[in-house]
């Protein structure tokens, strides 16, 4: 048994501080695994990145009234919206933290999803080696656009 971990820095995320709208879009084929074989299986058998090149999230900060983008601090937020992976869109609500420091915004969140909810089939032969739930960690830094 070993941890299967992959990183993806090919992400565009936009937060609208006026409306609380938050969106992420990432390229599925850019997940980088330690092993080339894991990467190949992920792209070809699980996420099917040629057929479904992107995963997206579009949502809003539910407790926008608790936020003060003009004041430094760490704010606990709940973000609700639609998560689209592998051609399946599901409503999710996830906790996160927004950090405001000298005008810059960074966002972190950790939440879990089940591959089967997104119609990602794990072959029977490796079912015991792959967890039923996958942990997703988000870490974004934003720049102000006028």
């Amino acid at each position: 048994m070993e941890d299967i971990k992959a990183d993806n820095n090919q992400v565009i995320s936009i937060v609208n501080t006026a409306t609380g709208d938050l969106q992420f879009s990432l390229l599925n084929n850019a997940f980088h695994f330690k092993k080339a074989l894991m990467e190949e299986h992920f792209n070809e058998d699980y996420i099917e990145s040629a057929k479904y090149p992107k995963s997206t999230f579009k949502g809003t900060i539910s407790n926008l009234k608790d936020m003060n983008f003009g004041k430094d601090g760490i704010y606990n937020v709940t973000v609700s919206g639609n998560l689209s992976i592998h051609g399946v869109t599901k409503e999710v609500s996830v906790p996160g933290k927004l950090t405001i420091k000298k005008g810059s915004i960074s966002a972190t969140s950790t939440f879990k999803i089940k591959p089967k909810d997104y119609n990602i089939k794990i072959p029977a032969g490796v079912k015991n080696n792959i967890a039923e739930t996958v942990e997703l960690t988000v870490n974004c830094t934003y720049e102000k656009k006028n």
Partner: protein
Amino acid sequence: MSRKRIILIAAICIVLAAAITGYMLWNKPHKEVKDASGVKITATELYNNFITDSAKARTLYTDKVVQVTGEVARLALNQQDQQIILIKTPVSGAYINCTMEEKTNAVKEGASVTVKGICSGYISGDAEMGLPGDVFLVRGYPFTK
């Protein structure tokens, strides 16, 4: 040699071959980028191809080694301390966004650069907010040959 012994040796050979194949598959290296021959293209052409006909551009460039030349707009580091080179495109605020495999001091903002890397594709931005998208390259190397 008895028939039993031949069968036993053959079985051992098959098991060994399977084990070696499995080991090699499990440990096979990632796609070679540094010394691979990449598709030579300018940042302008690559970006224009993705925004005018993304389906065709995906077929031509996605998951392939490309060698992109353009002007360095900005250098940055991502959260994993990897160097990012943003190459200018014809669209203001839109870049060929290259995540580099190794850090380099040889690349300067405003100078011309050629980066060889694997093209991951294009992510559109948000038209309503006036934010254009980027074309992404991963496992990039500055091309010096």
